[in-house]
């Protein structure tokens, strides 16, 4: 090339070909002139779909998102499983990475096409998405579907015995997670703590799940024993309201909190091993004596934590074994005997004294307990079944479910025959049905409302159906027909019902006239509810304890109107499940401690 390279000097003039053409200020025709459908602009949050789990705030590494209380101001529901908090974004920090969108379990938080905002006021860059830009609803762009979300919406399936295999024995149906499954399931949790709020006992759920996810099973057990002394029982049969409010459950399957607790507790296979791992600190004896009536969940909980705090605790139990309803009311295929033995054995090793076969009122008087102890805790549960209120109920072979379950669990014999009808739709009804099915009976459940209205656990209902139990919804028993001898049950007459919507209440079943049907049965098991039996308490004290519709009235520390008497469990709370009973026991410990130790000082 020489300096006088004419071609090289003239070539730049080819640029004149662009003379007069428009500059590139517009997008190419094929792309359209709007921002892209996935554009990552300002946030928009659907305030009603959001549950305030705070996952967006957790993932944001710029700390651009904080959670603010909006419930009162914007009429946001603060139901169970909704914290009432909503994200607020600082656009001075946000980098529009949209991880908050991809980890939002509900899909309420999305990005919009809007990207343009100018203001001289630095504080005005704090936006509460959905509040400050309600119009964002129509401008959604970068969104997250179940497919693109980073959350894992599918639960690790639980291994179970086959339905046909189950009915042959009382072997435990649920097989439990192995280590690998537990780690994988635990890693689905986002630690939002919505579950902790709704758990009656406020168990430290995210903490122990986190420990399991990290492989620290011992830590998990210690965390669990912090406020639940019967966790293996809960791990098998808890009504698990925590899972109903799980943030993952909004768009997927809830984290299997119950099965994870079960996994952590089953790792310690003997009561000695529990003691070795939990290794609780037991305080020096403080000289106070507490008597506890009933070795059910609430009584045992109070006993355990009182014993740890240096109280001299004695439990009085009418039956041969401890556990209360969990021992006698829950079939062994759900909660095996040795599991309860192990847990109660651990409590005894810590120093809880349990006097079995000691019925208060018969073997020992309530007065004696009251006078010998500094405080008394009543955890007697609901043992007396409600009557069906139909003709023929008192015939032989018509038995309340709790009574039937108690006999079976106590290894007594009750022949249900070939055909069984169970009346009711709660967990007790399903238990009764599944136990009868294990005795080769053909079982039908009659329930007055629809299947979806059944208060029983859905897994229990499915389990029963797998085992061949027939559920007949919208059927109300009319009368029980006796055989020729007039002593035994021969058949049951029921009437079909239709559901009538009722304002402000759930639909009501109304009998359809003329739809009466009769089916032949050998046994009828009634399971429509239970109540407490206070006959063991002498009149002097019964009058002191305030009752409300059969339940003992207590303050928030489980103290009854007699300051020395505390109460908990089914006899007090309306939920009638084990975890509420445990929560009652735990609260009572605080109440008893406050009452006794405060007076000491």
């Amino acid at each position, binding site marked *: 090339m020489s300096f006088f390279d004419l071609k090289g000097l003239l*070539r730049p003039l080819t640029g004149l070909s662009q003379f007069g053409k428009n500059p590139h200020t517009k997008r190419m025709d094929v792309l359209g002139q709007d921002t892209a459908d996935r554009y*990552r602009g300002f946030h928009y949050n659907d305030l009603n779909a959001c549950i305030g789990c705070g996952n967006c705030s957790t993932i944001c590494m710029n700390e651009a998102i904080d959670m603010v209380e909006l419930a009162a101001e914007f009429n946001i529901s603060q139901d169970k499983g909704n914290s009432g908090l909503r994200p607020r974004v600082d656009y001075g920090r946000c980098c*529009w990475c949209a991880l908050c969108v991809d*980890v939002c379990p509900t899909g309420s938080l999305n990005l919009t096409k809007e990207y343009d905002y100018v203001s001289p006021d630095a504080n005005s860059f704090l936006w509460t998405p959905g509040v400050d830009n309600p119009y964002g609803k129509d401008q959604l762009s970068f969104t997250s579907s179940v497919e693109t979300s980073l959350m*894992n919406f599918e639960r690790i399936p639980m291994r179970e015995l086959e339905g046909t295999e189950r009915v042959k024995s009382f072997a435990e149906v649920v097989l439990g997670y192995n280590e690998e499954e537990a780690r994988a399931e635990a890693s689905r949790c986002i630690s939002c703590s919505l579950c902790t709020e709704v758990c009656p006992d406020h168990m430290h759920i995210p903490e122990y799940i986190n420990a399991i*996810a990290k492989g620290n099973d011992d830590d998990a057990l210690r965390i669990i024993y912090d406020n639940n002394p019967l966790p293996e029982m809960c791990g098998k049969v808890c009504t698990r309201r925590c899972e109903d409010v799980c943030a993952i459950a909004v768009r997927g399957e809830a984290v299997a909190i119950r099965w994870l607790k079960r996994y952590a507790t089953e790792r310690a296979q003997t009561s000695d091993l529990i003691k070795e791992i939990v290794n609780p600190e037991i305080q020096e004896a403080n000289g106070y004596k507490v008597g506890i009536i009933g070795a059910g969940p609430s009584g045992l909980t109070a006993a355990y934590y009182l014993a740890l705090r240096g109280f001299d605790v004695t439990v009085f139990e009418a039956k041969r074994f401890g556990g209360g309803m969990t021992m006698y009311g829950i079939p062994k295929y759900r909660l095996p005997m040795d599991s309860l033995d192990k847990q109660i054995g651990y409590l005894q090793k810590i120093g809880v004294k349990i006097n079995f076969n000691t019925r208060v009122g018969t073997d020992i008087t309530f007065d004696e307990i009251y006078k010998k102890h500094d405080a008394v805790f009543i955890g007697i549960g609901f043992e007396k079944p409600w009557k069906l209120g139909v003709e023929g109920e008192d015939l032989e072979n018509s038995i309340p479910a709790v009574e039937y379950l108690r006999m079976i669990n106590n290894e007594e014999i009750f022949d249900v025959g070939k055909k069984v009808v169970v009346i009711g739709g709660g967990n007790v009804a399903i238990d009764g049905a599944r136990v009868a099915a294990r005795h080769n009976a053909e079982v039908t459940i009659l329930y007055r409302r629809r299947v979806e209205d059944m208060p029983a656990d859905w897994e229990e209902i499915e389990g029963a159906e797998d085992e061949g139990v027939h559920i007949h919804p919208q059927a109300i028993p009319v009368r029980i027909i006796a055989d020729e001898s007039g002593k035994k049950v021969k058949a049951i007459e029921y009437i079909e019902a239709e559901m009538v919507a009722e304002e402000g209440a759930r639909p009501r079943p109304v009998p359809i006239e003329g739809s009466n049907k009769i089916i032949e049965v050998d046994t009828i098991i009634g399971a429509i509810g239970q109540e407490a039996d206070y006959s063991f308490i002498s009149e002097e004290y019964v009058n002191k304890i305030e009752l409300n519709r059969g339940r003992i009235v207590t303050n928030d520390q489980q103290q009854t109107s007699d300051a020395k008497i505390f109460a908990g469990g089914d006899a007090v709370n309306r939920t009638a499940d084990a975890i509420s009973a445990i929560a009652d026991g735990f609260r009572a410990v605080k109440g008893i401690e406050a009452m006794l130790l405060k007076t000491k000082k």
Partner: protein
Amino acid sequence: MREKSTTLYLGPQHPGITGNMMVKLQLEGDTIVKATTHVGYLHRAFEKLIERRNWMQSTTILCRFCVPEPDPPEAAFALAVEQIEGREVPERGKYLRSLVLELARIQSFMLWYAGQNGSAGLYTVGQWSVGDRNYVLDLFEELTGGRIYHMYIWPGGVRRDIPEGFEDKVLHTMDYIEKRIDDYDRMMFDSAIFQKRAQGVGIISKEKAMEWGVVGAPLRGCGIGHDVRKDNPYDAYDKLDFQMGIFDGGDVWARAKVRQFEIRQSISMVRQIIQNLPKGDYLNKMPNPMKWTIPAGSAYGKVESVRGEFGFHVVSDGSDKPRRVHARGPAYAHGISLLEDILVGENLADVSFIMNSLGVCPPEIER
């Protein structure tokens, strides 16, 4: 008469400097006697920040290592993490990654057109190429939701599948750009002014290039064929047909020729990817990001960026956060030791010109 020596500070804020850094020049007349680089104006401690973020959060800071080229760091990190964790990437994910990486090369080449010509005083091509580059950024916007920072390549694959009709838009844009770079070439490579400015300027010898770990276009401009995509194929590169641009001379001209050749290769690769895009999953999903742990171990993931080999050495101690992430980019070798050496004896007016030919990215030096 003895010539007097002058000291001149070029940068840190100077249109001729790529990013923010400073070159302290000692001059005799217009000739450089000594050049000293000063960095530290862009230090944001990326490597340290990553240690405090969990694995998922880390993925969103990587793009900030280099603004003109945000995708190679994402890909290198993903490769390293996948190697430690043993996470497979679905075939479609691999192709989409290569697509993004090649589109990133194309837009980065176009930015280079602007810098290389601008620093020679030839502004027209720069105006065109930056304008045309926006069409590639539009594609990124369609695909990832962001124009510059894509946060798109994740360990295990890519973040989203391509939107409907995206393939046609890509092909259409490629046709347009291919036509346009012919215009650039006429204005640039055919121009006597550019030839005069580029030939024999900023020469790197073959030996020095080997010794100092020069990579990318500067290395291939010394006649040495080295490209991570060829030597250690990752993602879909083993299934794509392409060639390295190897030119002799070691000067700015040779480096420009390498890039002129490779932008066309990239366009060809994008077309191949679109034609052969396999069906199936695009992401092998990681566990919940809040609880995502990577087994203890370490790995080096490297990719070919426009500026050369870019890699991350990632160390995990088995927890939910990286123990250490170390970036090895071309900018340190090119922008500090090499630049200081090859500037000696050059003309003051060529400092920016040479710097632009090396591909120096200061934030990557100061990670």
